[in-house]
């Protein structure tokens, strides 16, 4: 580590907020060698972003202070630089990209302008023509197709992934020695994330720059990092080479974090079912399946068995369909047939409908009673819409939805009311899923009252208290307002609200994606526990394959409004048939240690 590009020594960053001071970064030291990547991981609020911003000194002047520490870039202490000095460093020597590609670009300036601005800022003698030439080159470098013609595009004309590429191009335009990336892929789809990560690695190889990479996802760490630092409450609790830390975590906090990654979670009572036709086995199977071997009389018994397994896998599609039908006759709680939810696109003088956004298009799906069905797919593919349509929160354009054999479509609000008791929904955002003006008690008991659960108010309160205790919350929580809880706690209340009516079916729309891994693990375990006790049926919408594998019995993959693949989770995840599913799965970063 002698050739360290950046060396941070005993850095403390205190932030003034409200009346007091927050010790956001508390005495951390690490160094980044030239051409290597240092990953900072940790849970939300642990001080990762503040550390990064301290390095590039972008924290607001009046708010931040550094009681101690040095930040040495090539031996020069950045903390002692004056304003023009640090500005000469920013962009030129250290560049930074941020999490939110949607808002990090100036919406009213074309992307070309924004990149050339950075160029011309640090190369004052560069004329416009040269600047735009370099800009186009930078855009090509980040693999934006037709870079020259996109020069004049505005950020809103690009997709999220493209915007993040533009951000990278801008950061790299001046060929900095250090790139700070603050969760650059968190807001993106897995498939896009994979591409961006690949791009960043490639660029790093090309330019030999160093990277300070911030993330909370250990899977990403595994892919990117040479070095890892784990932060907890402003302190760097563990630093080391990537493999070492991931394989043999020393600090209990690191161990705890790693254990909470869904892939590492112990799967309760389903290990036997998890026939994992893992990647390792596939080559052998392929060998066996080759035509040369197929008619060989001398196959061993075991090989024959394997072949028959292979046949089964090949016919899995049909088999699973048969199975689905068979089960429907037995006990399918939800039956969806040819469901369409089309949103009209209105244009012209009289707002005629010229086209539709086919959010959900001819979807047929059965959800067996008592199972957890995971719904995955890229952002905007119609997962939420489908979930809402099942609950009649979105009126379907066509098709039929039955719960317990009872048709839902075409019912009036009044007719629907008794059925609402059977099906509920829980949401992603813990902030907005609870009415901030109502006591938890009111939130829980109001629906009970409407549906006549509990004879009187006292009884309902008793029920609600019980429910909270099931959710591992104290009974006193009834008498608090939502803002008095943490995100994870709120999510539990949200679940409790959904369960208050004792429903048979619950749609969970990405209920864990806004949460830290450790909280996520708790919630998932809770969910399994509740399912077991109440025989719940769940439609679990997510884009986290790890969660899918951990939790669900069956998996449904959606792509552009249609279901492209569905089946038993282990089969879908293990040997995906559909091209899209394959792409999706291959993009998922894995904690391969």
């Amino acid at each position: 580590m002698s050739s360290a590009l950046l060396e941070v020594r005993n850095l403390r960053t205190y932030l003034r907020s409200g009346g007091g001071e927050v010790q956001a970064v508390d005495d951390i030291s690490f160094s980044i060698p030239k051409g290597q990547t240092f990953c900072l991981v940790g849970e939300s609020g642990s001080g990762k972003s503040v550390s990064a911003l301290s390095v590039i000194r972008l924290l607001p002047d009046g708010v931040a202070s550094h009681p101690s520490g040095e930040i040495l870039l090539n031996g020069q202490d950045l903390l002692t630089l004056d304003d023009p000095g640090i500005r000469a460093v920013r962009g030129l020597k250290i560049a930074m990209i941020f999490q939110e590609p949607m808002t990090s670009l100036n919406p009213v300036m074309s992307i070309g302008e924004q990149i050339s601005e950075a160029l011309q800022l640090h190369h004052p003698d560069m004329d416009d023509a040269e600047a735009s030439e370099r800009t186009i080159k930078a855009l090509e470098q980040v693999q934006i197709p037709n870079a020259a013609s996109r020069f004049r595009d505005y950020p809103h004309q690009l997709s999220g992934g493209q915007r993040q590429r533009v951000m990278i191009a801008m950061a790299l335009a001046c060929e900095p020695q250090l790139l700070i990336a603050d969760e650059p892929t968190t807001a993106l789809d897995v498939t896009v994330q994979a591409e961006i990560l690949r791009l960043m690695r490639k660029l790093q190889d090309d330019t030999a720059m160093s990277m300070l990479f911030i993330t909370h996802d250990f899977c990403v760490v595994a892919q990117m990092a040479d070095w890892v630092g784990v932060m907890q409450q402003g302190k760097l609790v563990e630093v080391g080479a990537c493999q070492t830390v991931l394989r043999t975590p020393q600090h209990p906090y690191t161990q705890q974090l790693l254990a909470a990654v869904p892939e590492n979670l112990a799967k309760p009572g389903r290990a036997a079912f998890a026939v994992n036709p893992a990647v390792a086995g596939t080559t052998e199977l392929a060998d066996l399946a080759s035509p040369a071997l197929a008619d060989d009389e001398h196959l061993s018994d075991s090989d024959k068995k394997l072949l028959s397994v292979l046949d089964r896998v090949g016919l899995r599609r049909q088999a699973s369909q048969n199975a689905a039908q068979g089960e429907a006759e037995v006990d399918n709680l939800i039956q969806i047939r040819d469901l369409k939810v089309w949103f009209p696109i209105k244009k012209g003088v009289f707002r005629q409908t010229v086209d539709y956004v086919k959010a959900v298009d001819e979807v047929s799906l059965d959800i067996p009673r008592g199972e957890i069905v995971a719904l995955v797919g890229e952002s905007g593919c119609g997962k939420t819409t489908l979930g809402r349509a099942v609950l009649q929160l979105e009126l379907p354009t066509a098709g039929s939805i039955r719960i317990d054999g009872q048709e839902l479509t075409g019912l009036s609000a009044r007719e629907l009311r008794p059925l609402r008791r059977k099906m509920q929904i829980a949401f992603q955002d813990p902030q907005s899923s609870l009415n901030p003006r109502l006591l938890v008690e009111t939130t829980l008991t109001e629906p009970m009252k409407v549906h006549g659960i509990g004879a009187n108010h006292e009884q309902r309160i008793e029920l609600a208290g019980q429910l909270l205790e099931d959710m591992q919350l104290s009974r006193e929580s009834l008498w608090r307002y939502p803002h008095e809880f943490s995100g994870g706690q709120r999510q539990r209340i949200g679940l409790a609200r959904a369960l208050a009516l004792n429903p048979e079916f619950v749609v969970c729309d990405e209920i864990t994606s806004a949460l830290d891994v450790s909280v996520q693990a708790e919630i998932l375990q809770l969910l399994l526990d509740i399912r077991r006790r109440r025989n719940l049926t769940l439609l679990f919408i997510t884009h986290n394959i790890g969660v899918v594998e951990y939790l669900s019995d069956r998996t449904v993959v959606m792509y552009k409004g249609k279901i492209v693949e569905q089946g038993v989770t282990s089969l879908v995840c293990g040997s995906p048939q559909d091209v899209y599913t394959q792409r999706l799965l291959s993009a998922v970063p894995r904690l391969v240690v």
Partner: protein
Amino acid sequence: MLTYLLRRLLLMIPTLLGITILVFSVMAMSPGGISAQTLIGGMDMKPQEKQALLDYYNKRYGLDQPAPVQYLRWLNNVSPIGFVTDAQGQRGEFSFSKGMDLGTSFQYGRPVSDILAERIPITLLLNLVTLPFTYIIAIMVGMKAATQRGGAFDIGAGMSMLALWSIPTMLAGVLLLGFFANIQHFQWFPTAGISSREAQDMSFLPHWDQGGFVRGFLLDRAWHLVLPVFCLSYGGFAALTKLTRTSILENLHADYARTARAKGLAENDVLWKHVFRNSLLPLITVSAGLLPSLLAGSLIVENIFSINGMGQLAVEAVKGRDRELVLSITWISGFLTLIGYLIADFCYTLADPRVSYD
């Protein structure tokens, strides 16, 4: 864009119809309603003379018919397409090119269109001078307040703008007149009108003459506009300043501003090159909303400064129950406002690439 424009223009029609229906019903429902009697001011007229005049008005404006019929008649006259009517008020055939007839003002006995053609430019001049003036001051103050957030200037400006907002216009107008146009104090500005008699004989631009400095028509007009424009504008400062401040603050902390800083841009460049243009967007939206309040403000300001604009006309028309005039003033100011909104929206498209209308 074209379809968007067309759609907006079509949507204006129900609004304008609504405005006229509302105003018409108010007039029709008011005690006495609209009748020829209200038109005859003369006290020293013989009964039969009065009757003759009444008949004349009844025939001309159909005032003896039920209110809805009267309204439809009026509407037919005003709309550019409809039935041709002759001098007797008889209905002729349907035509698409008959043109608009705003009718004749009861109390002035002149075509409404003529009167409005005289008055609208004056009020528009007043408002169009006021608007940029208000904006420039508000943006300057708002910007300074935002950059010195929490500082003495910020708090002081916020308070004093709010205080300005709270001063009744008529009090301000009268005090201004009393102090800045009065020989007892400072006779800096003229008391009335929007140009002096002498200016009509002057050349347009100021220049030096053998007799000395000649202020010219332009300068004379500007000199007359100072006090009214100030009176009209100060009330708008507070809201706009506040808006500018908020908007700039918000954008100063926006992600893209951080990106710009990360590039190494100086704070001033961040402010002017990045934040400023984004902060203007909400200001554009409210600009159209200011127009109706300005028009209303003209009512008082024109009254105090003896300016013969729409506001003054409106008060006279309402007090004199001049139906044709009242109706036309309302729908035209409504129309102007709607056009104002449209222009504001259009400017918004220009300023914000994200918005496009198809």
